[in-house]
């Protein structure tokens, strides 16, 4: 009796989900999960005038789908997390860093541009980053918080092709932050002064090309293997900031590997 009742509920749910999809065209949402390992080069003159270098682990999760009302508009999200452990040039001090970053935006997509299977997309995104960089040797300036909001433009190219019977897809995307805002203590201001004494002093600064020129590029190739799709690629993430006379950069380059999932979106 109970089993039959559950069966009816499941059947009802399937009916609700299926009937609308039968009334229109299904859409695909592509979800790419990537894990990266690479090298990072840190500079933060609030902590040290020297560049620290070391390994970095990266996680990337990208979703993209076209809009129902306009299949030429692509909606894309990109979540990124990274963790690094870097050494000073003399290798007697260390930085531990971590960031989480999320961007979402829309782009105009042109399909089959120049050659069959090549799609180009250009658009804008908004997003933000939260992170930290900790130096294990410093006293009253041991760490630096990272927080920013950015609006950026992106361009991506997706090329589907076939070698013999093997379907492949190449993806390249580049993100360029345009305008935003970022947190930064003043040149010689301690976090004790900022948070314990509550002395706010232009600690949220506008960012633009001139003081925060950054660039993120991701190149991947998708290789379907049976029912799964393997994704391999290269991530170059160059972030810079120069405000309140403090200079920061985080240059990372990573090899990425992951998988792609296609999710059918049903609609009325």
């Amino acid at each position, binding site marked *: 009796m109970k089993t039959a009742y559950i069966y009816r509920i499941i059947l009802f749910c399937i009916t609700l989900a299926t009937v609308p999809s039968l009334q229109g065209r299904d859409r695909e949402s592509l979800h790419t999960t990537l894990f990266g390992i690479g090298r990072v080069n840190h500079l933060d003159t609030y902590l040290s005038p020297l560049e620290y270098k070391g390994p970095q682990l990266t996680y990337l999760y990208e979703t993209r789908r076209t809009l129902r009302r306009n299949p030429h508009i692509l909606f894309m999200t990109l979540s990124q997390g990274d963790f690094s452990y870097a050494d000073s040039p003399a290798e007697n001090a260390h930085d531990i860093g971590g960031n989480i970053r999320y961007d979402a935006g829309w782009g105009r997509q042109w399909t089959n541009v120049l050659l069959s299977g090549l799609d180009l997309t250009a658009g804008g995104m908004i997003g933000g980053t939260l992170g930290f960089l900790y*130096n294990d040797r410093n*006293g009253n300036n041991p760490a630096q918080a990272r927080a920013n909001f950015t609006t950026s433009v992106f*361009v991506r190219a997706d090329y589907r092709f076939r070698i013999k019977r093997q379907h492949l897809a190449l993806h390249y995307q580049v993100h*360029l932050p345009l305008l935003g805002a970022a947190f930064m203590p*003043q040149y*010689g201001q301690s976090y004790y*002064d900022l948070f314990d004494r509550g002395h706010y002093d232009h600690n949220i600064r506008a960012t633009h090309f001139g003081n925060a020129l950054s660039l993120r590029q991701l190149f991947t190739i998708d290789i379907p293997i049976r029912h799964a799709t393997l994704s391999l690629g290269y991530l170059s993430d160059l972030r810079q900031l120069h405000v309140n006379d403090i200079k920061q950069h985080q240059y990372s380059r990573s090899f990425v590997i992951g998988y792609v999932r296609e999710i059918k979106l049903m609609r009325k």
Partner: protein
Amino acid sequence: MKRFLYILFTLCTLVSCVNEDTFDNTPEGNFEALWQIIDEHYCFLDYKAKAIGLDWNEVHTRYRQRINPNMNNAQLQEVLCDMLSELRDGHVNLYTSADVSRYWSWFEDYPRNWTQDLRDRYLGTDYKIAAGIKYRIMEDNIGLIVYESFSSGVGEGNLDDVMYYLRSCNGLIIDVRGNSGGTITYAERLAQRLTNERLLVGYTQYKTGRGHNDFSTPKAEYLEPSEGVRWQKRVVVLQNRECYSACNLFIRNAHACERVTTLGDHSGGGSGMPFSSELPNGWAVRFSASPSFDKDMQHIEFGIAPDIPCSLSEEDAAKGIDTLIEKAREILNLTPTLPGEGD
């Protein structure tokens, strides 16, 4: 579309790197790196130019002559330490694997005005310990608090218990001689027990750029009365040349309290909050980065004078008497409350 891509490509090629000047890991490079760190970050260059005639550019010229490419680490450290000593700042250190270069003349060149043996005689063996505080009630009903280092913490609960225990005393001696600083929070926490009012105790600044005079607008610092048990009678704070950094700030804050009298020698000073940096060879450097001032916007980098100067006499010390504690007891026994206050 093509136009957009062209613009984007042009912008990408214009990406300029945010980098810092780099120096070679050579004696010359490390010397220049250290000189530049101090030149751009140290907060007292302008003040000390006026106060002690420090000319940092002249220091560069003079010490650069002592650098040669073949010198070893010990020789390099000696020259760099000598150069940093020109700053006359106990918050400036150069850390190597073999040694810590320091400037300690701010207390080594003066009488200590206390000894551990003498203080131990006054504490006896039955004193109480509340976190970083040692305390007891002396025979003449004067409370004695000894806070040896603000690196040792003290909680609000500890201070409530200490103040409550000492509540029946006629006066209180807070002995911070030999306390070379630590955490500012603990120093403030103790001073907050000595006032019933919110008091302006000083100002603070920090650097806003690399120039010697690039400073923020001074921000007032207030001492908030504690919400716990507060001391309502007179207090004598014992200070000496070893009172430095956070202890110097404690003396500044206590000095602003109406019931507090300071007694002893000048405090050591050290009013710049230290930051850290490093040289290409991995040596760490510590330096003063943001100055604090007293309530009259005067520098306290070279210490704070006591209300009542007093030195430890050799005769007293030979008899097992601490001149400063005895003087403080005399003051407190004569006038345990301020004029106009009932007892």
